[in-house]
């Protein structure tokens, strides 16, 4: 496609990204199991952030209950594995499908709600699911204890149990997801999502089936979150409702906005801020979260477009400062 400045820049950017990716491949061999594990959890957050970014960033739907889909994936894996003994490797895609399916069923009746009404409903769905998991209605979810004894994934003779295995599992899945999202961003579907975010009425007048496109985004986002949940379940081997609270949803929401709506590198930066900043502030001891809250405000005030906004935003902000 024709974007003159981009064409010139492309080889250099490709090189930078290539080198960065190479570093990711070498990382676990140099870092030791602890940091590999830290990176794995970070990767799971990136995956969750990317999945929410489809809904919030690309389509502009306010979803503050994303942890519900994450939980659905984790519990699908947990329950099917411990009750029926289905190998967890198969459950990776199954969890995605189940979470996506629930995403469809749950959001279909509410997809027409605007902005903040959708926001409270997604919060409600998150809470309904969490409380249901705790109350353990059919003895499936283990109540507040959750599901335990989830088996590791097995690929032929390889059991995915060491930190480095999980690291590469997450890296592979995340890479795939990034490729999928990049391609979607530059497709008819991705553009349609952006049109809806920019102006729903105009998008509809342009012949975009707004309802279906919104649902598609929700289903895809839910399915990816479900896959992240499945990985989390086999990594932890035990899952409980307290990992899927409203607070978790807020963290994910913040990751997307802080990084920059609709921006894939933004999600990575946002996850890093939300996970690493509290650790860096550790020296401040009890003042840690105080600084963290203040930092959130300061970051938004000085970079309302996010830390690494998608290219269009940069373009626009650049213009505005020129004026």
């Amino acid at each position: 496609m024709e974007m003159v400045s981009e064409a010139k820049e492309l080889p250099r950017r490709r090189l930078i990204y290539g080198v960065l990716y190479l570093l990711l491949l070498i990382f676990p061999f140099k870092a030791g199991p602890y940091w590999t594990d830290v990176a794995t959890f970070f990767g799971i957050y990136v995956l969750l952030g990317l999945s929410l970014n489809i809904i919030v960033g690309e389509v502009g739907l306010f979803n503050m209950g994303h942890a519900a889909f994450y939980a659905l994936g984790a519990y699908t894996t947990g329950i099917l594995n411990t009750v029926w003994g289905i190998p967890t490797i198969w459950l990776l895609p199954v969890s995605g499908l189940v979470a996506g399916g629930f995403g469809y069923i749950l959001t279909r009746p509410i997809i027409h709600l605007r902005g903040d009404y959708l926001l409270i409903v997604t919060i409600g769905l998150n809470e309904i699911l969490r409380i249901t998991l705790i109350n353990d209605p059919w003895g499936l979810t283990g109540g507040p204890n959750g599901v335990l004894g989830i088996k590791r994934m097995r690929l032929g003779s390889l059991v995915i149990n060491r930190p480095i295995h999980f690291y590469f599992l997450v890296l592979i899945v995340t890479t795939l997801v990034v490729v999928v999202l990049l391609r979607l961003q530059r497709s008819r579907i991705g553009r349609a999502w952006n049109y809806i975010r920019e102006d729903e009425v105009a998008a509809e007048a342009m012949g975009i089936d707004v309802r279906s496109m919104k649902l598609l985004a929700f289903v895809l986002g839910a399915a990816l979150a479900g896959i992240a949940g499945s990985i989390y379940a086999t990594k932890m081997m035990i899952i409980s409702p307290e990992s899927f609270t409203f607070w978790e949803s807020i963290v994910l929401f913040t990751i997307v906005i802080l990084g920059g709506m609709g921006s894939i590198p933004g999600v990575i930066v946002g996850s890093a801020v939300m996970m690493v900043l509290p650790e860096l502030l550790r020296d401040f001891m009890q003042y840690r979260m105080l600084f963290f809250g203040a930092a959130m405000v300061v970051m938004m005030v000085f970079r309302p477009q996010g830390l690494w906004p998608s290219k269009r935003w940069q373009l626009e902000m650049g213009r505005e400062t020129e004026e």
Partner: protein
Amino acid sequence: MEQPLLQVIGVRKAFGGLLAVNDVDFWVPEGQIASLIGPNGAGKTTVFNLITGIESPDAGKIMFAGRDITGCPPHVITRAGIARTFQTLRLFPNLTCLENVMAGQHVRTKAGLFSSVLRTSRQQEEERRIYEAARRCLDKVGLWHLRAELAKNLSYGDQRLLEIARALATEPSLLILDEPASGLNNVETARLMDLIRQIRDEGITILLIEHDMDVVMGISEWITVLDNGRKIGQGTPEDIQENEEVIVAYLGKEEEDFSWNSCN
């Protein structure tokens, strides 16, 4: 007379107790520039919304190209071949002009989730087609050089043109323009009128809602007049200018609301 492309038959719409559109019948002949005029509150915009599917009528029928489109959702109507612009501009402000116009091609293409992810040769071919179509439409309104610009950074007149380009990209057989000349200066208005004629010449039927009587009388070949939610006249510009009921309706209105020549 030409075949009617669009036929509105006995359409009625009420909001609460207010009857906004009352038994309106009119048609738009194919291949012509038609206008829908009337004083403020006459029900023009409501008729518009009924045709484009944003509202559905309480009674009556809307036929387009021999097809009943009554109550269809907007995206179906757009697919059927009706495109529109908005009175208050509704572009996608944070997207580039090119992307804005590419939106129009959405209904003319099919690539789904999987072919987009897999980048099938078919999808790639389609993307090229979308790009080419967008390029043609931008060229037509003379905005190709601004393709990488964000829509919100365009001048007001250019934004109007961009909306028309976007509507054209849906490859419509009927293009509905909602007050396209409002806010434009004389030069821009003249250019706009040329553009509208040029579009007509390419075989696209045009329906105009317009306040600017110079524009309406200057380019319309077929005019429908609404007042108080009812149709009070239909015909060629000459017919309308001689129509007693129309004259009474307009003379009865206050000056600021409407006047034949105040726009000069």
